[in-house]
């Protein structure tokens, strides 16, 4: 079995958040994570790749502070703990919109919750909607949107607080392929222009290779890091990259790593 290339040396500039020996055992006894070590580096697009049930979503929730680890620590070197709420944007697997209100109010929610001045909020909401291409749908209710547009709304909401870290939990898994490719491209251009750090959970090898700088492959039950791959292909990536031999080779490499991870210890 081909072994993936060793992990690259850490980028300069430290880490945004690091998970040290993190374990998560649920009340029903299921061990979701066990001794997970993970550093998220500033400005990178990091994908957590693994089969369903490998605890990647759990890891994301721990980073977001939505759940507490039962072992180990989640460290924020810049000591932004008190401001974490402002620093993180979270995109769930489902669009998770409030059906009773418009796209605008949905995107404005994080600012409303922080009691931001309405005038300032309106400017930020317009900008966020503009960024995801939904400026014309501001007054529409979620049920009138397609699946892709709902997800764009969700992304706009995550971006509206201008977080430095964007966490995405299989956001495009439920979308058709054409929509997913389009959203992948749009996400990459957002990432390139906004310079956010992104942690992206997926079970799709192709998606992870297309999007990421770095892929962390996880083992299933209990979840821990199996190996990591650096994806050095330059940005901007586009359809040409998607059909290139380089992309195919990287996908094969990631697939093999994933298969090896699912097969047990290396």
């Amino acid at each position, binding site marked *: 079995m081909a072994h993936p290339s060793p992990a690259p040396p850490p980028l300069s500039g430290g880490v945004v958040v690091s998970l040290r020996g993190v374990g998560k055992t649920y009340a029903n006894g299921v061990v979701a994570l066990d001794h997970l070590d993970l550093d998220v580096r500033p400005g990178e697009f990091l994908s957590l790749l693994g089969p369903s049930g490998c605890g990647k979503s759990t890891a994301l929730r721990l980073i977001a502070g939505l759940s507490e680890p039962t072992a180990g620590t989640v460290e924020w070197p810049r000591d932004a703990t008190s401001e974490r709420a402002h620093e993180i944007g979270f995109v769930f697997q489902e669009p*998770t919109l409030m059906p009773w209100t418009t796209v605008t109010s949905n995107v404005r929610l994080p600012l409303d919750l922080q009691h931001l001045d309405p005038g300032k909020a309106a400017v930020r909401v317009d900008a966020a909607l503009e960024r995801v291409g939904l400026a014309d749908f501001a007054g529409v209710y979620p049920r009138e949107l397609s699946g892709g547009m709902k997800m764009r709304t969700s992304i706009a909401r995550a971006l509206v607080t201008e977080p430095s870290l964007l966490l995405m939990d299989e956001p495009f898994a439920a979308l058709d392929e054409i929509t997913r490719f389009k959203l992948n491209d749009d996400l990459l251009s957002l990432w390139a222009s906004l310079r956010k750090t992104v942690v992206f959970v997926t079970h799709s090898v192709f998606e992870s290779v297309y999007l990421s700088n770095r892929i962390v492959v996880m083992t299933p039950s209990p979840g821990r890091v199996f190996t990591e791959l650096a994806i050095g292909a330059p940005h901007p990536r586009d359809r040409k990259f998607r059909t290139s031999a380089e992309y195919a080779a990287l996908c094969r490499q990631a697939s093999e790593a994933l298969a090896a991870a699912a097969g047990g210890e290396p």
Partner: protein
Amino acid sequence: MNAEPTERRRKRGEDALRILLPIAFLAVGVLVWDLIVRLYDIKPFLLPSPGLVFATLVSDWPLLFQSLLVTLTTTLEGFLLAVVGGVGLAILFNLSRLVEYSLYPYAVILQVTPVVAIAPLLIVWLPQHAAVLACAWIVAFFPMLANTTLGLHSVDRNLVDLFRLYRASLGQVLWRLKLPAALPYIMGGLKIAGGLSLIGAVVAEIAAGAAGAGSGLAWRISESQYRLNVPRMFAALVLLSVAGIVIYFALSLLSYLVLRRWHESALGRDT
């Protein structure tokens, strides 16, 4: 998109049928009623003809209308108290599990004990008006409480996480998340409670009628019964039915107006 016009026309035809058929059925029913009364020459104190009922409704209108207002006022007061109390207590339950555990069984007991059985006791204890009001309140209270409680628990888990992520306060979660999410359930509760508070008021008025006081529509019915004024009984009954129907449709309209932009229940039948 192309199939829309025919689809819409078909739907409109069906809507028209839904209105016209019950009216036609009513007309036939009234006709048969009238025929039977004429053919068998039934005495008015057994079964008055529809014409006589209508005539009584017109001739006794001042009296009946006065009574209708009394009953409707009690119904409305009981209903509003039930809405405020039911929603309020549901919110309290949602905030504190201890309060919920302590009080919920008693709310259920209040519900399962037939109001007809409680009414005489209330009339002994309370002044006339307060007793009737209490009955209207008791029956309407539980549907509001139960529905709102269910609604407040039916919040999208991810949305709860989202509010947590942004450190929303308890008030923000309640006002911006839980209450809107519970709104369809609250609206369902309103529709049930509206009709029930009328029933509660009527039951109490009838029970109080034996005690001799009061002037509501139901009290008119029992009074007319003693006097064998059956046409007036029918007229009062018709008014009560109409009042119930109006309450139901008014609350349905309210529900539709509140939910039409987003909730499945208000988005038409063909989905």
